[in-house]
């Protein structure tokens, strides 16, 4: 069109663009949580890890001028928070859900405290790869400016799927998650396996946070996460602890988040609160459709405190 507008095509394009832009933090947190939960422990603190990751990535990127060092710092921060969670949970009679909630508050609080001086400065951002070079429609080009972290996340999902099935480490994690006694009988330390799984989970969640502050929306402020970490933890249950389903669920959530603003921009203005709630309605609908009173959740690791 002459005025540079693409009319109603904005909506599918925005949903596609949103699926790519918004899904990455969901993807990393849910894959991380998938590893942790498969080992038999729930880490609800990943919201705090996500926010801490976002803050530390922004800070390190600002101080060193290298956004990739920021991503690394976010991962390390996440792994440390994961180690803290695992450490506390390895004490006898400690409830991992309660520890997770405490760490969620601790992580967000600490990030807000340390992040105060980072709200004003502008840190170098992660670069985007232009996959829209074949199109001369600027809207398409904008939607296809993809960050490499998204690609890593997309590649990670099938790798994890494969690793859980066929590698020694994948089997060990699953054994610890399905039957701690069996793992012990095989001579493995369940606590050590869970410590490592929680640290890897935290590492990935931290990287998810770095995407928020260093790519999209692309700056540090205190409302940055607005509950995405918690949503991603719920996504894992929704995806039945399957990394591939985590990928699809994250993409669906990203696209659903873009739906409300996109519909308003083409003039569908009534009921925007409903469209803004689309991701949550989607979760509820799928939960209701897939749940059954006759059996427990399929795919749930037997050692998880929610299924025990």
């Amino acid at each position, binding site marked *: 069109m002459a*005025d*540079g*507008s*693409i009319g109603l095509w*904005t909506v599918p*394009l*925005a949903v596609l*663009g*949103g699926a790519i*832009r*918004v899904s990455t933090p969901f993807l990393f947190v849910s894959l991380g949580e998938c590893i942790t939960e498969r080992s038999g422990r729930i880490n609800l603190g990943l919201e705090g890890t996500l926010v801490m990751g976002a803050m530390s990535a922004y800070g390190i990127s600002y101080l060193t001028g290298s956004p990739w060092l920021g991503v690394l710092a976010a991962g390390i921060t996440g792994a440390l928070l994961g180690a803290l969670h695992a450490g506390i949970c390895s004490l006898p009679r400690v409830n991992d859900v309660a520890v997770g909630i405490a760490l969620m508050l601790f992580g967000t609080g600490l990030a*807000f405290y340390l992040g*105060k001086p980072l*709200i*004003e400065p*502008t840190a170098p951002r992660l670069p985007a790869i232009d996959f829209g070079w074949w199109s001369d429609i600027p*809207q398409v080009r*904008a939607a296809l400016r993809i960050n490499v972290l998204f690609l890593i996340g997309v590649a990670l999902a099938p790798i994890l799927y494969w690793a859980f099935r066929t590698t020694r480490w994948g089997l060990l994690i699953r054994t610890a998650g399905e039957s701690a006694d069996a793992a012990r009988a095989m001579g493995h330390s369940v606590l050590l396996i869970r410590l490592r799984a929680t640290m890897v989970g935290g590492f990935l969640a931290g990287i998810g946070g770095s995407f928020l502050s260093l790519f*999209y*929306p*692309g*700056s540090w*402020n*205190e*409302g*940055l996460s*607005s509950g*995405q970490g918690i949503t991603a933890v719920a996504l894992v249950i929704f995806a039945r602890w399957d990394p591939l389903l985590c990928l699809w669920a994250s993409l669906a959530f990203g696209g659903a*988040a*873009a739906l*409300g*603003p*996109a519909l*308003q*921009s*083409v*003039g569908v*203005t*009534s009921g*925007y*609160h409903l469209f*803004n709630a689309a991701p949550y309605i989607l979760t509820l609908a799928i939960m209701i459709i897939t749940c059954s009173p006759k059996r427990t959740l399929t795919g749930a690791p037997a050692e998880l405190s929610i299924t025990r």
Partner: protein
Amino acid sequence: MDFGRISRRHLLQGGAALTLGAAAGLRPAFAAETTIGFIYVGSRDDYGYNQAHAQGAAALKKIPGLKVVEEEKVPETDAVEKTIESMINLDGATLLFPTSFGYYNPHMIKMANKYPKLRFEHCGGLWSDKDPKNAGSYFGYIDEAQYISGIVAGLTSKSSKLGFVAAKPIPQVLRNINAFTLGAKSVNPKATTQVIFTGDWSMPVKEAEATNSLIDQGVDVLTCHVDGPKTMVENAARRGAFVCGYHTNQSALAPKAYLTGAEWNWEALYPKFVKMIASGEGIPNFYRGGLKEEIVKTSPYGEAVSAEARKAADEAKAKFLSAEGYAIFKGGLLDNKGKTVIPAGTDRGQKDPELEKMDYLVEGVIGATS
């Protein structure tokens, strides 16, 4: 008016010192320490609404004899009552500034009834005769600055499509959207403003999505009314669109894309309030003002603003600053559904309380309030 613990005598001494100090070129000094409490709904360095108030509070900190206590991220619930109580009972605050819209009724009104000797000043509320006499509400006609932003936007846009990222459809937000649109239409009759409501004051991901969707629709100048405009400004600039700022000056975030902006000027108002108390006249319960009263201001023009746009904007500014002022919302105004919202012949001047109940979007705005 009785200020109880503010101790009128001390304040009068302070006031005298203030005048003497000013006369002698010295910094004014309050004889005794007065504590002032500021309550923010978000983070006080959000590049936006709360930062503007915090800059005002910082201006008070420079006045000797005044102690400022602050609490940020206080939700618009019972929590603000607890904060007010602790500022009064633990810090000895005698003048309180709960700065967020939702603090006013019932929370601040309740506290003002409970502590009748202390003074409460609320930003944005609509004080009426039924409310306690020790409470007051102040606000700025920032729509005047938005009108000027609209003029600059209307003359800068190539597509004549403007975008507005808004939080919630409350009167103050609607008034800004409408003033921005009327400003643009005054110089560019073809101009339209597409509005997207994100649903809450701080939703960075939604704000970024809204910004991208608007630009996908061909919008090339954006502004916003959310708590922290940083997300909109940075994301719009990355896509090559121009922006008008809000709350504070965001030109440092996008020097090439920043045209102008509507800013609060609390650092001028709050010291004025303190002087009013010190001089014994007190703060009027209902306090309003715009560019002329220096409660709001506009950001300096960015490099992308043409000479024509500068001239048109300066002329509008001169009208607002003139003795008779200028009414943005004039008779014969239609909303975007074709209904007459202000009948022909009745101009609604800035101080008209009807404007603070605005529930419509004017002709030229694409969007709906619900």
